[in-house]
């Protein structure tokens, strides 16, 4: 080591990562890519196939007319109650589909619930407002609400101002929505979708107006805020099950059943892992799971 000049060593150390990067890029260029499986993702592919297989099997069972039970979800049962309360008070219903893009599954799930809510609002003639932050979500939400009013046989009640686009900025959006909540005092607020730092601001503003609030998100960090400030909260998977639960469609319920079976398998895996670790000190179950997830 002492024979190498210090300045040269530091140059080599600085250049090493770039050299490694360049050599791996060259190696990739030389590699002839054909049809095949990405070797790092083989275990994930097996898990994906298992999951899809179980879900598709349950869909098949449901199509054959097998009775499926789905537990009661209080937050979804309260949807009609909230809309009914707004109708009685003659005040509007506000539905915020989160601030996520339409490419997020959470947002798509929120749009499914939105359609259900909009249909009930149309049937009861209750005013509805759906403020949006993401432009793509805005376009999808407008279509969903429009179709819901058509289905309810009340296209005359729909106008495009019911689904306004506010702004692309997170806190400017929050300021506008909380302002609307305080000024216009909707009787029911639905905060369903992908939420981040604005979750508590929106939910607290709604809570201060005395509105009945139903929230739902899969963002774990935001759930405590919603649980604290809202009357009902759809926690994680309940949000994704919402459309199946509300539609009572047996095929969709089959999907939920399949998902529950896979969850039971995961739970069993964890329990066996704990037992094996406690009894033998081996982390084989954990290692298998880590490698299957590509860690």
């Amino acid at each position, binding site marked *: 080591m002492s024979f190498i000049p210090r300045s040269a060593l530091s140059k080599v150390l600085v250049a090493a990562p770039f050299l490694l990067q360049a050599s791996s890029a060259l190696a990739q260029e030389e590699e002839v*890519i*054909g*049809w095949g*499986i*990405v070797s790092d*993702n083989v275990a*994930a*592919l097996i898990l994906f196939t298992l*999951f899809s297989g179980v*879900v598709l099997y349950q*869909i098949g069972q449901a199509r054959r007319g097998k009775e499926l039970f789905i537990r009661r979800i209080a937050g979804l049962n309260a949807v009609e109650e909230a809309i009914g309360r707004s109708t009685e008070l003659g005040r509007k219903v506000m539905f915020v589909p989160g601030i996520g*893009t339409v490419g997020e*599954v959470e947002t*798509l*799930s929120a*749009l*499914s619930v939105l*359609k259900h809510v909009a249909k009930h609002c149309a049937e009861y003639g209750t005013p509805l407002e759906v403020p949006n932050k993401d*432009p*793509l979500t*805005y*376009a*999808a939400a407008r*279509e*969903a609400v429009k*179709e*819901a009013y058509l*289905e309810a046989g009340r296209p005359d009640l729909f106008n*495009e*101002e019911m689904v*306004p*686009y*506010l*702004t*692309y*900025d997170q*806190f*400017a959006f929050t*300021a506008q929505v909380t302002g609307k909540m305080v*000024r216009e005092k909707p009787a029911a607020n639905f905060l369903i979708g992908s939420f981040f*730092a604005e979750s*508590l*601001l929106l939910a*607290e503003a709604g809570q201060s107006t005395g509105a009945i609030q139903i929230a739902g998100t*899969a963002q*774990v960090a935001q759930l405590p805020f919603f649980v604290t400030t809202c009357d009902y909260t759809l926690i*994680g*998977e309940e*949000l*994704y099950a919402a*459309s*199946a639960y509300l*539609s009572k*469609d047996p*095929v*969709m319920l089959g*999907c939920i059943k399949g*998902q529950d079976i896979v*969850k039971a398998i*995961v739970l069993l895996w964890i329990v066996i892992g704990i037992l094996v670790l406690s009894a033998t000190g081996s982390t084989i179950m954990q290692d298998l799971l880590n490698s299957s997830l590509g860690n």
Partner: protein
Amino acid sequence: MLKKKIPVLLCFLAGLLPIISFFFTSPGDGLREANDTLEQWLVVVSGFALLLGVISVFQVNLRKISNRSKGWVNAIYLLASLVIMGAFGLMDAFSEMPGWGWVGTSGNTGFNWIFDAIFQPLQSTMFSLLAFYVASAAFRAFRARNLEAGLLLAAAMVVMLGINPYVVKVLPFLPEWTRWIMNGPNAAAQRGIIIGAALGAASMTLRILLGIERSWLGLQEGE
């Protein structure tokens, strides 16, 4: 019929491509390139959707002004801000193009000034409101009305006091208790929610890809 089937088919194809490119390789890495192109398309579509959004903002607020609805003056401020900020943004964009430029604008001064001096402080103000809202939400959540709420209060007290350096000097065992609560019961509950949500998201994705779940498209289940 086609109006209903084509969006579902497009959704299936657009959803299938990222899955296939994640698991499989193809000659010339075509799958990954196609996936990258699809992501670029999404950006372009978002741009057009944003234009729709701006039109909506104008429509709603111009109607509010013309009808002299409640708060119509605020609508004027909003539209003025939108036009001014948009104009400065466009001026800056054009000034960066070779051969284009505006007299009196060098660099991004106008846009940046509005952003730094007005927009940023307003954003910070909104964000700082969280501190007060957290306090009021905590006050409601930590009322010991029953056994569960009492347990929640006790856990919260331990965690909050366990990270307070002054309290830790008097009660040195508290950080250990805090760590146990955060890494034990708290982490277990969070992971339970995350596992459930991940499986729920995967199931929902499958329903969307197979066209079973269509309500987000505005279609009925039977359509």
